[in-house]
Structures are given as structure tokens and as C-alpha cells.
């Protein structure tokens, strides 16, 4: 088979089921689930095959001219592979979860349709081979996620959806303008490690403007302060959506975009030379602190997790902006690690809400005895977020710390310190309550979802699996097949490939 088919296949495995699902009548549960899970499995399989191929030096790309000088290009490189694997894997997980979660709720076809489209867009974002293509899929992602945010259809959900769109569309506009300007200045060549703007150093003012626009556009999704406000509001969405939004799709697309822009458009050394990296660094640092502080004062579990995301995702930007190889490693692995940890947290939070009706922090008391496995997963996710070894979060923080030292930005270590402290401050009370709190006589809204397990098996296993990966990726970080190994390989390309 021709290599150029692969990117299309990878998108098609979610796009086709997605569109199909829209038109499946509500009651045909089996067909819908089969399409969903089948698509997810095939996609995961394809991604794994592609990654193996990538390791052996195969090139997967396909392009299509849409306007003169403007190509729509899909290409799978190492960075794309990282994001692809993350999204394919987490899609499978969340799909299973969502099927369990939304059992018997209305409008499921619509939900799963958009859910699947959302993943298609995410894989598109991953595989976009140039900035133009990236923008395309990035915007698609906005559109596909909006109905998910609003899915519940309540007044609150609609308001949240409105806020979400206001932010993301305006951000998209900024991104688009930046892309156009860049296109006129430098064309739209492929992403290339080290960037392609070196010749344009004379247009410094332009490059700064474009940088501002791009970062503003990407920062909205990546929830950089001050573009973050949509994220906590978007929490009204059903749990699998929040999980997907926070762990993979939206937030990560933004972070991933920042990586692409800094590494493969501007080139990190170039951006650093112009001082852009420092701006990003400060923004990321502020976001990290601000998000954590806000999380501390949120008494709604999902909102607390949301602010935690605001904070955690900026680690990616932080790592990139450090402009050193070690920091870059830290940032890049955090794309995956944060994804796994955060999805674990959101899925477990969803479990609490769905099984027992728990939404607030104080309601968590004693839930560890009622739902021990869920709580184990939650605990692992939370501890990972704090950055305790040997969990995945530790590896990220470790490299971020090393990266900060490497480039002599010692104050970043202070940021890491404060952030971790705050992480602990807002996560540990939850863990504590869950395990040690007094269980109430009656849970807020208890449902019997399973006789065998503490909750429906489709709700229980996904977070357990992701929690396990959080542990595994931390413990076996040194192996080449883990995120760390892969990212080291990538970062070598960026920093030595010059």
C-alpha cells in the first residue's frame, strides 16, 4: 500500500463512523457502539503500525493543492506520532467510557457523532504538515467540540458553549490572521525542525506581530492566562467530554500547536533569539500559578480539575519556552503525561458523579470505601499531577526542572515549586476526604449500575487503564518505547538537526 494513504486512513477511521453515527436512529445502540469501538480499535492499530514504520524511516505524507501556493498537507512525523498515539489511545478509552456513561440518555447519536468528529479533527491537527493545514483542523476541532460542550442543553450548558465559542473563534481568527501574514511573508512550507523563518529576521516587527497572533490563537485552546476563562465553564459538559477536552482534544491541540509553532515554524533558537520564548515563558509561568491558585478555591470537583488543567497544560508551553533540549523534553512528554493523568481524573470524577451523584468536594467524604478502585485511580492521577515519583507527572517535572536549570532560568524552578505545592494543596484534600472522610448515610444521588463492580464496568475500567499507564510511563520512563524515549528522539531532531 502506498504510504500516502495512511494519513487518510487514520482520519477516515473516525470520520466515516462519525458521519455514519449521525444518521443512526437513537435506539440502535449496538450498531453505534460497534462503529465507535471498531473505529477506535482500527485507528489505534493503524497508529501503532505507522509509528513502527516511522521508526524504521518510512515517510507518510499526502498533500493536496487548494489554492496557488497553498497546500493541504498531512504528514506523520515523530511529533505527530506522539499526539496521534495519545489521541487514538485515549479515544478508545473515552469511547468505552462514554458508551457506559451515556447509557439511556437522549441524543446519543448526536453526541457520538460529534465525539468522533472531534477525534478526527484532533488526528488532523496532529498530522497537519504545515501551518495552513494545522489551522484548518484546529478550527474544525472548535466546531466539533462545541456541540459536545452544549450537549446537555441546559441554560448553563448553553451559556458555557457560548463562552467557549466566543473564546475559541476569536482565537481562531487571530490564528488565521497570523497564518495569513506568515503565508504572505514566507509562504506555507512544511513544518521543519528548526523552523523556516531564519531568512526573515529583518521583518522582526512582523514576526513579533505574527507570534502574538499565533500565540493568542493557540493560547485560547491551550488555556493560557488570560485566554483561559472558557475552560472551567466548559465543565458543564458530560464527563467523557470534559475528559477528552482536557486531556486530548482541545487543550492539547493548543499546546501541540504551540510546540509546532515554536519548534517547526519559528525554530526554537530563532524564537529565543528574538525574545519570543521569554514572553511565552512568562505567560506559561503566570498561567501555572494562576490556575493552581484558582483551583484551590473551587469547591466543584470538575471545576477544580479544570483549573488544574489550566495550570498543568502550561507546563508544555513552559517546557518549550525554556528553549533548551531538556526543557523541551519535559514539555513534550507532558503532552502525553498530563493527558493520561487528567483523563484519569476526569473519568473518575465522572464515575463519582454518575454513580453517586457527587459533584462537590465535600461530598467526596468516604467515597473510597464505596468505590475503592475508582478512588485508587483518582489517587494515582492526583499524585501524578503533584509530580510524585514514580508516576508519569514526576518525569515531566523532572525534565522541566532540569531544563530550567540548563538554561539558567532558576526562577522557573520556583514556579515549579509553588505550582507543585499548590497542586498538593488542592488535590490532597480530595484524596484525603475520599479515603478518610466519613461516608454519609446516603449519597447525593446513587444509582445501581452494576452488581459485580462498584460501578458499570465501562465506567470503571477506562480510568483504571489510564491510571495504570500513568504508573507504567513513570516507572519505565527510561525505555525507548515510552514517551520519554520517543520525545528524546524528537528533541534531538530539533536541537541537533539544525
Amino acid at each position: 500500500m502506498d504510504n500516502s494513504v495512511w494519513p487518510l486512513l487514520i482520519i477516515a477511521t473516525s470520520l466515516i463512523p462519525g458521519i455514519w453515527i449521525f444518521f443512526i436512529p437513537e435506539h440502535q445502540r449496538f450498531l453505534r457502539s460497534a462503529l465507535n469501538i471498531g473505529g477506535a480499535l482500527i485507528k489505534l492499530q493503524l497508529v501503532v503500525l505507522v509509528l513502527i514504520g516511522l521508526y524504521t524511516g518510512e515517510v507518510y505524507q499526502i498533500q493536496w493543492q487548494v489554492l496557488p501556493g497553498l497546500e493541504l498537507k498531512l504528514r506523520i512525523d515523530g511529533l505527530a506520532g506522539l499526539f496521534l498515539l495519545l489521541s487514538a489511545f485515549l479515544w478508545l478509552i473515552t469511547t468505552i467510557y462514554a458508551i457506559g456513561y451515556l447509557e439511556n440518555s437522549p441524543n446519543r447519536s448526536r453526541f457520538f457523532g460529534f465525539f468522533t468528529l472531534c477525534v478526527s479533527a484532533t488526528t488532523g491537527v496532529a498530522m497537519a504538515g504545515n501551518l495552513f493545514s494545522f489551522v484548518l483542523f484546529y478550527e474544525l476541532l472548535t466546531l466539533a467540540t462545541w456541540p459536545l460542550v452544549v450537549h446537555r442543553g441546559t441554560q448553563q450548558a448553553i451559556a458555557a458553549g457560548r463562552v467557549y465559542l466566543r473564546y475559541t473563534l476569536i482565537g481562531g481568527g487571530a490564528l488565521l490572521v497570523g497564518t495569513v501574514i506568515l503565508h504572505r511573508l514566507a509562504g506555507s512550507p512544511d513544518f521543519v525542525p528548526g523552523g523556516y523563518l531564519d531568512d526573515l529576521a529583518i521583518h522582526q516587527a512582523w514576526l513579533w506581530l505574527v507570534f502574538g497572533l499565533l500565540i493568542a490563537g493557540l493560547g485560547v485552546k491551550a488555556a493560557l492566562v488570560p485566554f483561559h476563562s472558557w475552560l472551567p465553564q466548559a465543565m458543564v459538559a458530560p464527563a467523557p467530554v470534559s475528559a477528552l477536552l482536557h486531556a486530548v482534544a482541545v487543550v492539547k491541540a493548543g499546546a501541540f500547536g504551540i510546540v509546532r509553532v515554536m519548534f517547526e515554524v519559528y525554530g526554537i533558537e530563532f524564537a529565543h533569539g528574538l525574545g519570543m520564548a521569554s514572553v511565552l515563558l512568562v505567560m506559561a509561568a503566570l498561567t501555572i500559578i494562576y490556575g493552581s491558585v484558582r483551583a484551590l478555591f473551587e469547591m466543584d470537583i470538575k471545576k477544580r480539575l479544570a483549573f488544574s488543567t489550566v495550570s498543568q497544560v502550561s507546563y508544555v508551553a513552559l517546557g518549550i519556552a525554556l528553549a533548551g533540549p531538556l526543557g523541551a523534553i519535559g514539555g513534550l512528554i507532558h503532552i502525553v503525561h498530563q493527558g493520561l493523568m487528567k483523563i484519569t481524573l476526569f473519568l473518575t470524577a465522572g464515575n463519582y458523579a454518575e454513580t453517586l451523584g457527587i459533584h462537590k468536594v465535600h461530598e467526596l467524604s468516604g467515597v473510597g470505601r464505596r468505590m475503592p478502585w475508582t478512588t485508587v485511580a483518582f489517587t494515582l492521577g492526583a499524585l501524578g499531577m503533584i509530580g510524585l515519583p514514580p508516576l508519569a507527572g514526576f518525569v515531566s517535572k523532572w525534565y522541566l526542572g532540569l531544563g530550567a536549570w540548563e538554561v539558567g532560568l532558576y526562577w522557573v524552578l520556583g514556579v515549579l515549586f509553588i505550582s507543585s505545592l499548590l497542586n498538593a494543596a488542592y488535590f490532597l484534600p480530595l484524596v484525603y476526604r475520599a479515603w478518610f472522610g466519613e461516608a454519609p448515610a446516603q449519597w447525593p444521588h446513587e444509582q445501581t449500575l452494576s452488581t459485580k463492580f462498584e460501578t458499570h464496568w465501562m465506567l470503571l475500567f477506562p480510568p483504571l487503564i489510564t491510571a495504570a499507564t500513568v504508573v507504567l510511563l513513570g516507572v519505565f520512563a527510561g525505555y525507548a518505547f515510552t514517551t520519554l524515549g520517543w520525545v528524546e528522539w524528537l528533541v534531538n531532531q530539533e536541537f541537533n538537526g539544525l
Partner: protein
Amino acid sequence: MMDFSGMLAMIWLWPLLFALGLAWPRLRPYGIKLLPWALLPAGLLWFGFGWQLLADSSVTLKLEWPNILVGTRLNLDRLGFVWLSLSLIVWGVAALHSRWVQDVYAWRYALFFLLSLAGSLGLVVAADAVSFYLTFSLMSLAAWGLVIHERHASAQRAARWYILLAILGELWLFVGIVARAAELGTTDLSIWAQTSSAGWGLALIWLGLAVKIGVPILHIWLPLAHPAAPVPASAVLSGVMIKAGIIGWWLLLPSQAMANNEWLWLMPWLGVATMLFGGVLGLMQTDPKALLAYSSISQMGWLIWGIGWVWQSAQPEWMMLWVAAFAFHHALIKAGLFLAVGWVKFSATQARWMPWVWGMVILLALLLAGLPFSSGALLKAEMKQVSADALYQLPDSLLLAGSVITGLLMIQFVRRLARLEVQPKTLEKPALISWFSLVGLALIWPYAFMTPSWDNVLSDTQPLLIAVVFATAWRIRVNRQVHLAPGDGVVWLEAAGVKISQLKKHQAWWLKQQQYLVYWRLKSQQKLRRFSKRIYQAERFFLNWSNYVTWLGALLLLVGLSQVF
């Protein structure tokens, strides 16, 4: 000769495996009973390595797993053997005593016990910074479960402060480690021990570990946590875990560098200050366990002082053995004392054992206070002697004061213990035997490598005598006059916290702002609606025919004229 290097991982993975096993509900009832078995690999290693050490005292076990975490190294040398020994003994005895824990959540106690056991054993063999950090954190955080186990208000309060300080320490440590690792480019501790790096990285590591040691100001968790935990847990907390900080200082900080200007006087003075600080505050306690906790702080002063001059000596590796020996001494005795509290408390029904128990208590108190020919006296004397070649010397009188105050504390302890309310519990024979053995070991172990001489008897007796004199002369008990709640500074901090939270509660202003926000939102919605309506009606202007035609004419004029000009 057998290769025990694989056991380096086993000693701490094995308890972790036990901990995992507890996830299976059926195993939970056996959790407590299984605890001693968690020490099996550690015991084997101790035994096997002990034999190897006898053959060659410089032998080192090594294990490398480059792909685990960011590169894992484990090793064990003779210094490690000392640490391992004290850990093994104290944990073992505590494991046997854990049967005292009989409530519904006993398995949970077992879980945290196993986890912190794993961490505690792991950090002994850790030879890279990340492994150390990992095991250290595991130990610290899991111990939180032990502190909170009894769940009463004071336990919760203690746990809160414990975790706060523990995490603060962790993070200082983390940042420090990151800084050093980044600068040295490796996490291998054998390189770390020899290479210096930027001062504040060292300072952060020092600070992070100081929390565990209970250096004044950072000590506040300690007098809360030790009394709150179940007795065997207090024993390990005070006997073993507190030493982890010293181990960490030794492993993570470069000894030569630590003897430079800033550190030269800091460590000895801090040591003495800690001795006196812990002692004085301990005297103001009424709870025997709290008193013991302060005593531990005080004893840590000796170790701080010790490691201070070890760093300054020419042969730190060798000198460190003395400090380790003192740690060993303290570990055995302090564990024994804590367990003694348990025995006194729980064994009222076994009246025939009581004389024995009291005998042991007094013996232990004397050992700690420095009874001549005992380990305390011998080691203190030896340490003073070998520290003579250190660059910075402290006046002897200060150390004497430290010894005196230990004596006073012990007297006070025995008095307090006698007033303890008792709760009957079944007698655990293995535990009792292990306790007796522990005391026995504490009594005799120094003679394995030290020969006591009569020359120093007078000077050795000096502090004890002064203490007795003071205690009898000063009939009015200190703690009746100047009673201090355990955790000293915590009390003020908590009071301040309450004040602040009350302050916030009464801020009607804040509430008003929120109300105003809601009002403003409603109003702006209303305004928007009105604005929409106005916009909608504005189209009438364009709909009007005469306007339409005027526009048309105006445009005609515009296009025409714009081209002309």
C-alpha cells in the same frame, strides 16, 4: 560468595508487593499478621551482606537499572549496612508490635506501614538521586497514613501539619535535586558526594531534609505526629524515619563542600541549639509521647552536630560511621521507649509483667541519658574525641548541657509515664519478647566493637548526676508551671489561621461585590436586549423609500465625483 545485589531491589519491592496484595479484600484481615514477613528479604540481605562485610569491610553491593525511571542505581556499603541494621531492627520490632492495632481499619494501617517500610528500606540502598527522592517521598507520605490512623481530632490535626511540612520538604528537596542533577548532569550519588554545585541547590536539599530531621522551626509537625500515631508507628517514626534526613544529607550533599565557610559553624551550632531546644520544650510537656518526640528532636541535635564535624573531617566516610552508630543507638532506645509507653499503657492486666516492664523503661531511660558504660555515654565520649580534629569546635560545656537536658527529660518521662491512664489489652508474646530483645540489644551492642574503660566514668556520670540534682532540687515540676502544648508554634499558627478565616467571613463587602456582579450581569443582559431591539428597528431607516433613493443618488454622486477628483 553469594551475589545479593538483586536483593537490593527486593528489600523494598517486596513490601510494596505486600501492599498491592492488600488490594485484595480477602487478604486484608491478615494484613497486620503478615507485616513481619515483609522484612524477609531485608533480613536475608542483612544476614548475607553482614557475612560479606565480616570478610571484607569495604565490599559494596551494586545494582543498576538504567531504564527504570530516569536511571536507577542501588547500592549497599558498610555505612548503608548500619542504616539497614537499625531500620531492620526497629521496623521488625514495630511490625511485631503492630498487633496492638486492632480496629476496623487495621489493614489500612498495614498498608501504610508497608508503604513507608518500603520507602524507608529503599532510601538506605538508593544510589541515585531520583531513587532516593522516590523512596524518601514514599516513606514520608505513607507515614501520613500512620499518623492519621487513629482518626481522632488530634490525629487529624497532626496529620494535617505532618503532610503540609512533608510536602513542603519534598518540594524543596525536589527543586534542590533537580538543580544539582542539572548542574552535574547525572543522578549518580557517588558523583554527587564528591562534586559541589551551586549553593542554593545544596541549601534547598538541606532544607528539604531538615524538615524530616526536625530542625527547630521546621520541627512543628514532629511533636504532633509522634503522639498521635499508634505506638508502633511512633516507634518507627522516631526510631527510623527521622534518620532518613541524616542519611539524605549524607548522600545528597558533597561532604567537602559542606565544610566551607557558611556551613562550618552553622551545623555544630545548629546541632547544639537543637539539643537544647528540644530538651527545654520537652520538659514543658505532660504527654509522655510528646515528651519523647521532643527528646527525639533533642537527640537529632547530636546527629546534626555529628554530621557537621564529619563533613569537616579528613575522612568523612570513616567518621560517618560514628554518627551512624549514634543513630543506631538512638533508634534502638527511642523505639524501645515508645514501645514502653505502649507496654505501660496496655499491660495493666498482666500485673506480673509490670515490674519487668518498668525495669526495662528505667533501663532504657538511663541508656539514653548516658549511663556510664552504656552506648549513650560511650558514643558521646567517642564522638567528642574524634571530632577534635574538626575545623570548628564548640565549647564542651554546651555539649554537656545537651547531655544534662537529656537526663532531665528522661526523669521527667518516667514520672509522666507513671501517671499514664491504662487500657487493658491482650498480651502479645512475640512482641514482648522482641521488645525485651531490643532492650537487651541496646544494652550490649556497643561492646561488640568498643571496650569501655574506667577512665571516663567520672566525666560520663557528670551529666546524669547534674540532672538528678536538678530534678530533685527543682521539686516544682517545670511542666506544671510552664506548660506548653505539643507542637508549640503550631498553636499560634492555628490561632492566626482562625483569625484570618473569621476575618474573611465577616467581610460583607465581598458579598456585596458578588451581589453587585449579579445585578450588573442582569442589567447588561437587559441592556443588550434593548440594544438588539434598537438595532433591529434601525433598519427602518434603510427601508424608507425616500432614504433609499437618497442613498442611491448619493452613491451616484460619490462614484461619479470620486472619479472626477
